[in-house]
């Protein structure tokens, strides 16, 4: 029960309360670039959710077994090489490079999959599909997982990492689809010439972020309510 409620909290917090786009400002480039049509925005959101889950799975595994301080595999290797058993082996300096590698390969994988099974979608994405590699939302999820694996008191398992990643991906999908809907309506409005395009999109995003601020503190309240229920 406790684990399930913790997972639900992580998921909701990533998806809505601390929305990746509107609260942490990650993934702004596709948020402004691909949010002109709802269909495309939704597809983009799903692709990002998919990539983010694969990347989170791989980066959790890499971090847990290889990169974090005192991880099992390097410690074994170090012992095999006859190193001092008292030393803690810490490879976390390599983490950024490994994450980028993991993300780039997952994007490549998704690209191949989409090209084979959804050629129409592949055509409509164009250059934006490979650009998912430089979507900071994905690297941000990896970094959050790294942060929670460095704290030995509260070590995250794979299920928590996946809850965060999927929640973040869905939060991104929600934000980008909302934005696309608003922008489709904006096409019919008389916007001052200087603000047309990105300017008005940013102002709309600001108001959207204000609306999402209404969720502030919901995660704490939910945690309290769940704790009271389980007592």
């Amino acid at each position: 029960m406790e684990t399930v409620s913790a997972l639900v909290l992580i998921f909701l917090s990533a998806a809505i309360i601390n929305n990746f786009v509107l609260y942490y400002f990650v993934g702004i480039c596709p948020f402004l670039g691909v949010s002109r049509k709802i269909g495309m925005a939704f597809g983009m959101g799903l692709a990002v959710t998919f990539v983010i889950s694969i990347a989170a799975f791989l980066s959790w595994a890499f971090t847990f077994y290889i990169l974090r301080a005192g991880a099992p595999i390097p410690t074994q290797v170090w012992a095999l090489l006859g190193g001092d058993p008292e030393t803690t082996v810490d490879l976390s300096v390599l983490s950024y490079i490994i994450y980028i590698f993991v993300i780039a390969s997952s994007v490549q994988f998704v690209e191949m999959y989409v090209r084979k099974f959804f050629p129409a979608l592949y055509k409509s994405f164009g250059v934006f599909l490979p650009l998912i590699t430089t979507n900071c939302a994905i690297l941000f999820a990896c970094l959050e997982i790294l942060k929670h694996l460095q704290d030995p008191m509260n070590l995250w398992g794979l299920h928590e990492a996946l809850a965060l990643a999927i929640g973040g991906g869905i939060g991104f999908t929600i934000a980008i689809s909302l934005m696309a809907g608003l922008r489709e309506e904006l096409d019919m409005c008389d916007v001052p010439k200087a603000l047309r395009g990105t300017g008005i999109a940013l102002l709309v995003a600001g108001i959207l972020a204000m609306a999402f601020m209404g969720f502030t503190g919901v995660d704490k309240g939910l945690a309290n309510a769940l704790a009271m229920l389980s007592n």
Partner: protein
Amino acid sequence: MAHESPTALERFINGILPENPIYRQLLGLCPFLAVTNAMAPAMTMAAATGFVLIAANVMVSAIRGLLKPHLRILVFTLTIATFVTIADKVLAAYLYDMSKQLGPYIPLIICNCLIISRCEICASKQSIKVAFADGVGMSLGFALALASIATVREILGSGSWFGVELLSPEFWPAWGIMVLPPGAFLVMGVLLGAAEWYGNRKKAAAAAQTSEA
């Protein structure tokens, strides 16, 4: 090459205003919005991004003869990731509080599309000298843009600039919204509109002049 490549000086000047990475090209918006609620973190961010941009530009330019077309993006990102690791460790060693405050946004420099686009457009095609000048110009432009939005947000949001109090709290009730996420979007939208408006006006004036002459 069909057309003349820009020289070092042109690259340097272009980076600051005419091709300003934020206002003209809309690249690298994530750190731009995330760290600009005060001047100090914004300038640290600009310095870190500048270091990575210049170093990656020089490095990519030095190995441009060895680049294979289908692998170049991967090479760019791995080069950038290496320099970001260096910047991150240096910041954590010498400016620990600032590094804690900036948190994940320092490693997120890896995903700053500005750096990849400079590697692609300039560094992978031109000499080290031009790439260096381009990096310096673009970093200055980026720093200038960060400073502009951070100034507005810090003065309106907390009545201070670089932590020095300018407006006393008695007659300036700080606009809390400015230091919160929505303020970043709003200020950015308005500033972008202002830059666009100014650019349009200058263009119109130039057009009027040519038609008179």
